């Protein structure tokens, strides 16, 4: 298996919300994706054109660029379950997450 999940996290500056989103994302990546990902953090204050290109309105916004289909999640990613549903990613450790699949 290669690093086939490409994630982009758009934030606005070093706000508590941004920090929270980054921490939440990192923990999701570590616990659920087990290293099979590439995470890029983009500060739209510094690179607004990237936000323009992706038509980002709200921050934080997480975009799953690869594999298709493109998926978006907005918010500070505090709800892990919703993040995974939104990204359309099957958690790798299925054995631990049986209860979630029914939702």
């Amino acid at each position: 298996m290669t690093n086939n999940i490409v994630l982009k996290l758009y934030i606005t500056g070093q706000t508590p919300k941004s920090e929270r989103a980054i921490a939440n994302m990192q923990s999701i990546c570590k616990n659920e994706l087990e290293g099979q990902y590439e995470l890029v953090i983009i500060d739209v204050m510094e690179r607004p054109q990237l936000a323009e290109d992706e038509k980002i309105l709200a921050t934080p916004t997480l975009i799953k660029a690869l594999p298709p289909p493109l998926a978006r999640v907005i918010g500070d990613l505090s709800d892990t379950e919703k993040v995974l549903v939104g990204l359309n990613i099957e958690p790798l450790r299925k054995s631990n997450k049986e209860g979630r699949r029914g939702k």
Partner: protein
Amino acid sequence: MSAKKNSSQISKLETGIAGFDFVAGGGLPKGRTTLLAGTAGSSKTVFAAEFLGQGILKFKENGVFVTFEESPADICRNMKSLGWDIEKWVNEGKFAFVDASPDPGNQSVTAGEWDLGALIARIEHAVKKVNAKRVAMDSLGAIFTQFSDGAMVRQELFRVGSALKGMNVTSLLTAERTAEYGEISRFGVEEFVADNVIILRNALEHEKRRRTLEILKFRGCSHQKGEYPFTILPGEGIVVIPLSAMELQQKSSDIRITSGNADLDRMCGGGFFRDSIILVSGATGNGKTLMATEFIAGGVKNGERCLLLAFEESREQLIRNATGWGFDYEQMEREGKLKFVCEYPETAGLEDHLIKIRSEIDSFKPNRLVVDSLSALERVSSIKGFREFVIGLTSFIKHGEVAGLFTATTPSLMGGTSITETHISTITDSIILLRYVEMYGEMRRGLTVLKMRGSMHDKDIREYTIDGTGMHIGKPFRDITGIISGSPTRIQQGELGRISELFEEEKEKVESK
């Protein structure tokens, strides 16, 4: 700093939208946000886009368009029909889009707290990129449909509003309304984004759509109150018609011009005034168009330029009629002294007619203007709209020192007043009545100058005849009474003195009205 700004005079930013700046007392409050609310189809987007377009065209002020609804490509396409090439401006770095339109393939899931920080950063980026002085956002309601949490959107829009103030731009935000007369906007956005509110309406009145604009409030600045009609012209955009705000300041001329008929000139004490409005009222077929024709011919003879707006007859019919009375319209047209504009009144709303007439006047620069007939125009409008049209037209032609002759058709053959007359008699300077007089089983014609502002005039009701050389005004009817009221009665010679006095009184009454 903001407190200091508030206490000092708020300056206005000229928008460049025709007529709007006048109504707005100079333009939009500078450096502030203004909410533009309107129902679907009230041309909010056009107004917003034109606000930016005029900035680029007239004031070298660049603009940023934030769109929540239509895609930039759609907006460019729609505005092309008004003659604006937004794509070119974008390439020249004068115009920038912030595309926040919904993307159907791009649904997002919300997981936790968020804000519109990215949007603000993008607007800021765009404003810096093109050095914008103007920002338009269209429309705020659409952003509520993109996010499920309405309270969050409200709070965030408030942040956007204050961020805009910090960017040193004048901004115009649009919002939907659900009814023409009701709450200011859906979602109550006016409460948290704008100090200033403009309402666009597209109301249905007597089966006609009538667009109006109203400035509801400009916090801390003056503006005209009430609704003002506006229209959208291809190649020009929005044109607001500041009718009731027009000032009565036209100069008054005491230079006389000929009516084209020596007898009538004599009755009017030497001719019409050069900048006066003359209303000719009469039943069908008793010489209104002839009087208008003589008025034109008289002008052309003195080297004046005449514009004839015909709403009942075509150019060919007019030429044929004139030929029948011995006037050569075609020759006048060839000399460039006469221009015909023939149209059915139904082809456009009165606002559009008014603007068209104005541009004709601007380009042809006539000394005389004839509208034949004004009653035809009345058919296509409400009473209020018609009155405003006449006020707009008269004030415009008076500014240009153009003499105007309007005809009005009375509904009955004998006597009576036309509706047109009732509504506009106070606006006109002179009124000439043409009436049929039934005598001994014969239809004869009588004419009187009912009113002539600022001048003595003949008070007689005179008989006139029409033949192949025009109108000939003869002697007064001395032994007939009741012509104006439509029931002519022959009276004994001995009673004449008394009756003629009565006549005077009657006429004075009408005049003072």
